[in-house]
């Protein structure tokens, strides 16, 4: 009984303990529930805070993007604004320089003009570098793929770089197989890349050698073109080499002062190479020189989104024809190449007798004649040409290693060129002597007076009859007065821009067939190119080099004289 009583009391205590435990458990459960709810609220408010902060960040990002866009636009327009007066400075100094040369003015005066011009060109190249980099950074750099002749491209680069190489008494060696063929890439960017690396090599090498080698190779299962630029210059240390492609980090900060340039050339080049799916890499040894390799795909890996421009419309008339008489095949080839680039049809003869025969058969517009040839030399050919009435009127340009102008002119030669033939000189001579018989008229539509003056200067020298208009509307009015043979058209103008002018010309049957050459400082977008495609004959960049090529380009558009009326 006692035992039972003890058990009963124990059970009683257990029951009470259980109830106490249950109420404690309930209390704890409630506390946990409350704590959970608190956490949930905290979580919600955190989410709200995150959403709010995210919205603020998005706003800040949008503002930054907008500011960056505005900055890019400002930079682009600013550099256009900067380039316009600079082009005027360069253009006018060039004109003055030319006149000063002609008038045998004081030497000092000529030198000063030369300084203005070279300082202007230098400033222009710096501005171009900065603009390029800002475009690359803004991812606005557009590519324009086209198929081009590699050898021709290299010749052009070498012509441009030669004076730089000579400045430091460097020997420039170019190795490029004749059958290297073509590649499809962005010509301007390939050319600029090579130029940048070569001009660096020239800057940092004195009394040495600079070698450019171009090879076609199979690399990673695809055709690629490898350009190697080797110099015997000052070279770089490992540290310098490590940051040679970094922006704003020239190998030696003092080299900016010493060697000039923005130091952006290689940065831009690396970016170009990457854009073109290629790469640039370098090795160097201090005191011994540097080697840069640029490897680019021979054709873009993926079909580019940019459509290829339609082929140039076939010239309506036969091109100018020039007969090249030279016994040296290499010399013939070189001249022919130069002529082809100027839109001139070349026929060749490897000796005097053959040359005379070809001249009689083909009646060329001009003859380029070598002096030293076996069997019948150039002087004899010249004499024979001048004594044959049917051939006597054809201008003959003597081409020789020897300086013998007097002999040439005394025998009736029209002009004289020394080997190696300078592209520009050849072009100038042909432009001078292979002119259309009748004066052609050109209408220049451009809002910048400096540009109009410069064109007038260049074109009137070549026998063009020039009229000008300072905007699109004025241009159309001038067109209604007298229809020109050619229109030179700027794109960005107040009131009516170039695009609108082209649209109006194409709508009007009277003017639809007037050839238009666009001359612009604007960097054309793909969209711009599409708008222009087919509507214009040629596009000339409003740069120094672009403008100097103008006569040749006009030669392309107007390749031959009108067939003689009689």
């Amino acid at each position: 009984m006692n035992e039972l009583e003890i058990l009963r009391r124990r059970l009683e205590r257990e029951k009470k303990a259980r109830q106490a435990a249950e109420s404690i458990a309930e209390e704890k459960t409630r506390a946990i529930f409350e704590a959970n709810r608190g956490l949930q609220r905290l979580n919600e408010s955190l989410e709200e805070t995150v959403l709010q902060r995210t919205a603020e960040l998005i706003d800040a990002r949008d503002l930054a993007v907008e500011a960056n866009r505005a900055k890019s636009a400002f930079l682009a327009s600013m550099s256009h604004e900067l380039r316009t007066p600079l082009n005027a400075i360069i253009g006018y100094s060039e004109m003055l320089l030319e006149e000063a040369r002609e008038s045998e003015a004081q030497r000092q005066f000529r030198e000063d003009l030369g300084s203005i011009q070279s300082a202007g060109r230098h400033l222009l190249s710096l501005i171009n570098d900065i603009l390029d980099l800002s475009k690359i950074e803004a991812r606005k750099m557009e590519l324009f793929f086209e198929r081009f002749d590699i050898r021709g491209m290299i010749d052009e680069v070498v012509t441009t770089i030669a004076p730089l190489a000579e400045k430091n008494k460097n020997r420039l060696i170019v190795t490029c197989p004749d059958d290297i063929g073509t590649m499809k890439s962005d010509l301007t960017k390939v050319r600029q890349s090579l130029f940048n690396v070569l001009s660096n090599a020239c800057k940092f090498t004195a009394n040495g050698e600079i070698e450019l080698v171009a090879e076609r190779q199979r690399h990673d299962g695809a055709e690629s073109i490898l350009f190697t630029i080797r110099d015997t210059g000052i070279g770089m240390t490992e540290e310098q080499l490590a940051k040679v492609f970094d922006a704003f980090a020239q190998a030696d900060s003092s080299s900016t002062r010493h060697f000039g340039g923005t130091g952006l050339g290689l940065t831009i080049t690396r970016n170009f190479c990457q854009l073109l799916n290629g790469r640039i890499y370098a090795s160097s040894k201090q005191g011994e020189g540097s080697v840069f390799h640029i490897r680019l795909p021979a054709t873009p890996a993926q079909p580019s989104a940019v459509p290829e421009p339609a082929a140039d419309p076939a010239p309506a008339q036969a091109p100018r024809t020039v007969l090249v008489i030279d016994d040296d095949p290499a010399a013939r080839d070189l001249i022919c190449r130069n002529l082809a680039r100027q839109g001139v049809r070349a026929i060749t003869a490897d000796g005097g007798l053959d040359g005379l025969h070809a001249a009689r058969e083909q009646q060329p517009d001009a003859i380029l004649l070598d002096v030293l040839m076996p069997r019948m030399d150039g002087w004899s050919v010249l004499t024979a040409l001048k004594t044959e009435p049917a051939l006597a009127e054809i201008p003959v340009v003597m081409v020789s290693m020897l300086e013998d102008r007097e002999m040439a002119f005394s025998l009736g030669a029209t002009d004289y060129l020394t080997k190696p033939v300078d592209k520009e000189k050849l072009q100038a001579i042909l432009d001078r002597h292979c002119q259309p018989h009748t004066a052609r008229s050109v209408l220049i539509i451009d809002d910048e007076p400096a540009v109009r003056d410069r064109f007038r200067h260049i074109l009137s020298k070549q026998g063009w009859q020039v009229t000008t208009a300072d905007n699109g509307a004025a241009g159309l009015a001038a067109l209604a007065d007298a229809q020109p043979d050619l229109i030179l058209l700027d794109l960005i103008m107040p009131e009516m821009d170039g695009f609108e002018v082209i649209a109006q010309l194409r709508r009007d049957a009277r003017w639809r067939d007037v050839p238009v050459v666009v001359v612009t400082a604007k960097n054309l977008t793909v969209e711009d190119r599409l708008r222009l495609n087919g509507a214009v004959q040629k596009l000339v960049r409003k740069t120094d080099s672009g403008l100097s090529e103008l006569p040749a380009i006009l030669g392309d558009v107007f390749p031959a004289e009108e067939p003689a009326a009689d």
Partner: protein
Amino acid sequence: MKGVVFSEFIEMVEDKFSPEIADRIIDQADLPSGGAYTTVGTYDHAEILSLVGCLSNETSITPGDLVQAFGSYLFSRFHTAHPSFFTGMNSAFDFLGKVEDYIHVEVRKLYPDAELPSLECEAPDTNQLRMTYRSKRPFAALAEGLIRGCVAHFEEDIDIAVEDLSDGAGTAARFVLIRN
């Protein structure tokens, strides 16, 4: 004081003495809780002192000896209930050295309101451990029992000297353990 101490005490009395004695001392002690203890509850420490006093009367064993014996019993129960605390512990010194910084820390996580004694340890050499107990409550004897339970658990030959630091109040003491 946490309920587990009370329920373990009652169980010990039932087990080591008898259910009758347990029932009787609960009755005699006239506890505010009525002796209905749950491990999840918290009770006044005075109740355990009353229970020990009553048990002492019943058994003629001094309260100090009873509390110390309960300490040893409690340690073995602790080992059964929380084996995870013994992982990697190879000796009594190992274990005792970590009571303050490991076990008490874990206890506070579970029971933020727990009032734990402080247990400072110093080891003048590898064979000696000096532990100083201080508490608001007079449980130096309980601490001694726990220490002895620990030594017994690891089956080591360790001498334990006890120095009272509280004039017999039982709220502070120093235990000097020397391993033979």
